């Protein structure tokens, strides 16, 4: 079962990656200025109280000891507790992670149809009016900063027109769709041009291949050749880029989540960093790293599924 072996091997490879990520974040957090306890207790706390709290959280130990204890707990499934919320980190992640996941999937669903449509139209009329227009719009979409666009959209559609809520996540799946439409749209606006560019280039590349001539010589006609040969072959390079973008979206959810006040991982991360909430930052980073690894694995599996030459 070569497929199973591939998956297993990749997961084993993931272990040192996760270890490295945890070490780096641990050291960076410890080295960054600011003290969580001071932020927690405020200015008026006496040094004695601070010392007591430090001891309670184990913050008075040397950093190496703290890291090893953290690792030991991690192996038992304990990611520590939030200094700020006084709840286990796992609980915080469990409540924030689905929101981000939903947002990312929503962005993908919103992006893919226009990507395919625009790239195909663009490639089939290379140099034509539609192609020029699509490329120009693409540059615009890439050039506009996400946070600014997000602010504009939220002001116009949220505040002025009141079509969409400007914050939160809602309670039912339908409400989720409603609440997250603007955040997903703002993200899609820069994702779409990147993928369109890539897919268009791949389509043009494939349209010049020898097997296209073969298809035409069989009398299949341009449309059928495009559908049967050009398009499937063009997907391969785009799938790889798509995987990278999805991994980036998970980590890059910070901006839209902050602008739209979406209670997702990005927002949790930023707030925890500002509050020096060590264990939450640690836990969130590990979850991001793990997700990235899984997304990359999924991308490779999809590529292997598309291309018989890749032996899984």
């Amino acid at each position, binding site marked *: 079962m070569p497929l199973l072996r591939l998956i297993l091997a990749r997961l084993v490879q993931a272990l040192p990656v996760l270890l490295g990520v945890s070490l780096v974040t641990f050291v960076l957090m410890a080295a960054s200025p600011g003290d969580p306890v001071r932020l927690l207790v405020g200015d008026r706390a006496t040094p004695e109280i601070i010392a007591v709290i430090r001891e309670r959280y184990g913050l008075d130990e040397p950093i190496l000891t703290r890291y090893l204890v953290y690792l030991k707990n991690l192996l038992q499934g304990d990611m520590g507790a939030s200094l700020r919320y006084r709840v286990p980190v796992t609980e915080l992640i469990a409540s924030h992670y689905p929101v981000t996941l939903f947002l990312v999937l929503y962005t993908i669903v919103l992006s893919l149809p226009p990507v395919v449509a625009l790239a195909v139209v663009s490639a089939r009329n290379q140099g034509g009016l539609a192609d020029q227009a699509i490329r120009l719009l693409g540059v615009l979409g890439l050039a506009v900063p996400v946070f600014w666009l997000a602010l504009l959209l939220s002001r116009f559609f949220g505040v002025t027109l009141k079509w969409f809520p400007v914050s939160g996540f809602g309670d039912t799946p339908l409400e989720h769709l409603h609440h997250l439409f603007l955040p997903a749209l703002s993200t899609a606006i820069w994702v779409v041009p990147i993928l369109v560019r890539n897919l268009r280039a791949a389509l043009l590349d494939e349209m010049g*291949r*020898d*097997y296209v*001539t*073969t*298809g*035409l*010589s*069989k*009398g*299949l*006609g*341009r449309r*059928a050749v495009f559908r*049967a*040969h050009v398009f*499937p*072959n063009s997907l391969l390079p785009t799938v790889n880029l798509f995987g990278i973008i999805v991994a980036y979206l998970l980590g890059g959810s910070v901006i839209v989540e902050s602008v739209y006040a979406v209670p997702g991982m990005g927002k949790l991360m930023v707030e925890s960093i500002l509050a020096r909430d060590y264990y939450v930052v640690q836990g969130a980073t590990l979850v991001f790293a793990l997700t990235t690894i899984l997304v990359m694995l999924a991308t490779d599996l999809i590529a292997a599924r*598309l*291309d*018989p*030459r890749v032996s899984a």
Partner: protein
Amino acid sequence: MTLLSVRDLTVTFGPVIAASGVSFDLAQGEALGIVGESGSGKSVTCRALLRLLPASARVTGSVAFDGQEVTALREDALDALRGRRIGMIFQSPASHLDPLMRIGDQVGQTLRRHRGLSGKALAEEVVRLLDQVRIPDPRRWADAWPHELSGGMKQRAMIAGALACEPDVLIADEPTTALDATVQKGVLDLLNSLRADRGLAMIFVSHDLGAVARVCDRLLVMRNGEVVEEGTVNRIVTAPVHDYTRRLLASHPDRLPPRPPRALPAGAPEVLAATGLSVRFGRRSLSDWLSGRTGGFVALDGADLTLRKGEVLGIVGESGSGKSTLARALVGLNRAQAGTIRHLGQPVQPAGRNRVTYLRQVQMIYQHPYEALSPRLTVEQSIAEPLRRHRLVSSGRIGARVTELMAEVDLSPDLGTRLPWELSGGQCQRVAIARALALEPAVLIADEVTSALDVTLQAQVLDLLSRLQAERGLSMIFISHDLGVIRRLCDRVMVMRAGQIVETGQVAQVFDTPRQGYTRELIAAIPHLPGAEAPA
């Protein structure tokens, strides 16, 4: 009855005239050959017949097929013709098949499109077609992906797809150029029998007169976009009229002056010797190690070789036989896992620490002249590089030495400042030869140096190598898949197959009384000119 009638067909790409005023007729069941070298316009002409040229091409003239004017057809009427009445196959089957579609589906495309077959009926017909083009176990290969097939099988599959709807005409554009000689013979035989069974008319394009002669009755010779001569194959081969045709024929390996048999001086020392040379690609996995297997892919398996001073040794074999691997192992480009190499009796390590002294003596020339030269270096810079790097002459003398070397390989001095892309393939190969000669080597290893060249250029380069060898008393290893070429150039020959040397001996002896069945097969597959079996 005339099926296809072409009049004054002219194809231009901007200012470039690719084909000009081409006219010919093709009768039902007739096989017409089009012969010419690269850039002669033969492929462009073929593609113009089915309007397969890119939009940048301007086509004028008339192509009448069975009463219809192809150049004036609407796209849908044209598609009804393509694949149904006129089929086409191409040069490199690997790139002309879609890598992501199963063989059976690609073969069945025309059936689905033109005959509306689907489901079980389609699958059955595909298997029948694959069987007809002699693909063994057709049911299995119908489900295979293109990369799983050998080159010959891919070409057969392509033929099956092109002939699925029983067209009246098959256009074959260099269908065997990318194939080994024995595989080429198989494909040519197949085309012949299909033609006989079905009364198929055929246009067969090739640069190889021998291959064309196996299939065709009538011949067009093209040069620079124009038809220079037309006639029956026999007439053209025996009594060519046009100068260019004569040159083309004279360049065919059959017609090259044979190498006079000669004895090496009795005491000629062994300049190069290898024993038990083995090369393996890929790593040995743990399970290979435990079960005692060699692991990886064994490209060269215990090869022995000796080369004496002044000798020309030919190595012949089909693709994948390990002949290039052997050559590359001799100069350290592939690391040998086992075996020893000796130079003038001394053991050497071509990839080891003291390789420089050895490699100065043993130089290699490669198959693809454009790829073997740096695209950023001018001809002069390329030839001067080894002189500079090894400080062979004082820096003031480099220019003069380069001029000498260029003269020696018949490169005109005004080419010195050109870059590789401004040269022809033959000129590039001369630069590569001059660069190798700059080191004054004792041994020259030529790896398929003429395979990428047109026949007339091939003849010139062979001539040059022969002359240099005689003048300088070089020892030479000449690797080729073309037995005809080996016979003209070499004293001794080694036949390789699947990483092993199967037969070795003096050229005349191996050709006249081959001991191995495989050698006989190779010799039988040489595409000879008709009427003129190679004189010994």
